């Protein structure tokens, strides 16, 4: 034991000598950092004060309830890397300041993972395995255990009695209002944690991916950014810039969902997207229950 421990000490001392020769800031290769470390540069942006001199670029279209006040945020621009915010925007509190219901987020996330799941695991039952129609030996007299077929589940090479059977689907639907509330809770949580950014439009000067990465790092937006815009066409520059980036993704507003919002750290919305989302999500607060599916024509909708 003593000899063994001496050998270990010798090796450790040699390693420490080698690392001090190589460099002062060499991190060990097997270092595991916790994933919830806070970037100190993010903590210093206060919300807009009440007496700000910047113009109010957007007011809420829908009526805000009297006991709530609109959420105020900066409206920024992507044109240059170190530009000041352009103005302020009011966001509807019933979409961007709902109470944080983590159970609804969990339910919607689990629904998104499972409703499209098809499991193709399949095993053959004893009747489907090739062979095994004949009795292997006679019932009495051979001295061996009695068997009826060579493919019964207790035989090697036999069928599986209670295995997975064929393509199985795990489809189910949550109520529409639960899915809508999940979207509202996700947007409110991103707003409350200062990960939601409003931008006037998605025009960038260059189609360079590095420009976007530098902009994100300089403004301390986070590691991954989800850019959402209304409409089917996006500016060419931002499409080319995000095409090669893995953690910066751009989606149309119809594709917004809770899983993508939770996967990406920061969300960037344009003013048109905010109007579209408020319009779509607030309608469910005061709609009638459908007598027939909404895809069939109604006289007063859309």
């Amino acid at each position, binding site marked *: 034991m003593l000899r063994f421990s001496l050998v270990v000490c010798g090796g450790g001392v040699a390693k420490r000598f080698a690392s001090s020769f190589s460099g002062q800031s060499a991190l060990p290769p097997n270092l595991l950092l916790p994933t919830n470390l806070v970037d100190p540069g993010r903590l210093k942006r206060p919300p807009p004060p009440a007496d700000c001199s910047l113009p109010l670029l957007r007011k809420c279209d829908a009526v805000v309830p009297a006991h709530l006040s609109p959420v105020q945020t900066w409206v920024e621009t992507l044109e240059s890397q170190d530009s000041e915010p352009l103005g302020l925007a009011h966001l509807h509190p019933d979409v961007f300041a709902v109470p944080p219901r983590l159970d609804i987020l969990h339910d919607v996330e689990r629904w998104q993972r499972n409703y499209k799941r098809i499991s193709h695991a399949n095993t053959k*039952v004893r009747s489907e395995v090739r062979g095994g129609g004949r009795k292997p030996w006679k019932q009495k007299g051979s001295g061996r255990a009695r068997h009826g077929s060579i493919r019964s589940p207790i035989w090697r090479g036999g069928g599986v009695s209670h295995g997975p059977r064929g393509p199985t689907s795990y489809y189910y639907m949550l109520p529409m209002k639960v899915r809508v509330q999940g979207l509202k809770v996700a947007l409110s949580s991103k707003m409350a944690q200062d990960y939601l950014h409003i931008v006037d439009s998605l025009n960038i000067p260059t189609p360079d991916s590095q420009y976007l990465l530098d902009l994100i790092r300089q403004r301390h937006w986070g590691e991954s950014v989800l850019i959402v815009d209304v409409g089917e066409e996006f500016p060419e520059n931002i499409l080319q810039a995000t095409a090669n980036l*893995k953690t910066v993704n751009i989606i149309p507003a119809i594709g917004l969902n809770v899983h993508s919002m939770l*996967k990406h750290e920061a969300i960037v919305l344009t003013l048109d997207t905010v109007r579209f989302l408020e319009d*779509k999500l607030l309608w469910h607060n005061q709609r009638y229950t459908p007598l027939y*599916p909404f895809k069939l024509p109604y006289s007063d909708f859309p």
Partner: protein
Amino acid sequence: MSVLGGLLRAGASLCQSAGTLLHAARSISTGTCCRVRMHAIPELKKVDRWTEKRSMFGVYDNIGILGEFKAHPKDLIKAPCWLKGFKGNELQRLIRKKRMVGDRMMTLDRHNLEKRISFLYRRFNRTGKHR
């Protein structure tokens, strides 16, 4: 422990001069070591969390709510045609498969399907507590 002792003794004997190998060390195993031997902790497999599929997962799931109800999320599912937007136990799935796809199946598959349907029907409706 006893195997380690044996290795040490073998190492010590090798370190000494080659001429005086009078005592050839033999390792004795008393049977207390575990049979599963690993030389190192296996390293974690490297999973890329930002592939195209993983970063775009779940997009268009709310196409109904946000898109004027022209499409339904069940239209997005990639599945055999008898399972799109349908969930059921094994008997229900097999009956649906027979109704939708049965006349274009191979003879052996169709025969097995019919055997399985009749077995499950008898099992569910004639045996057990819930019939």
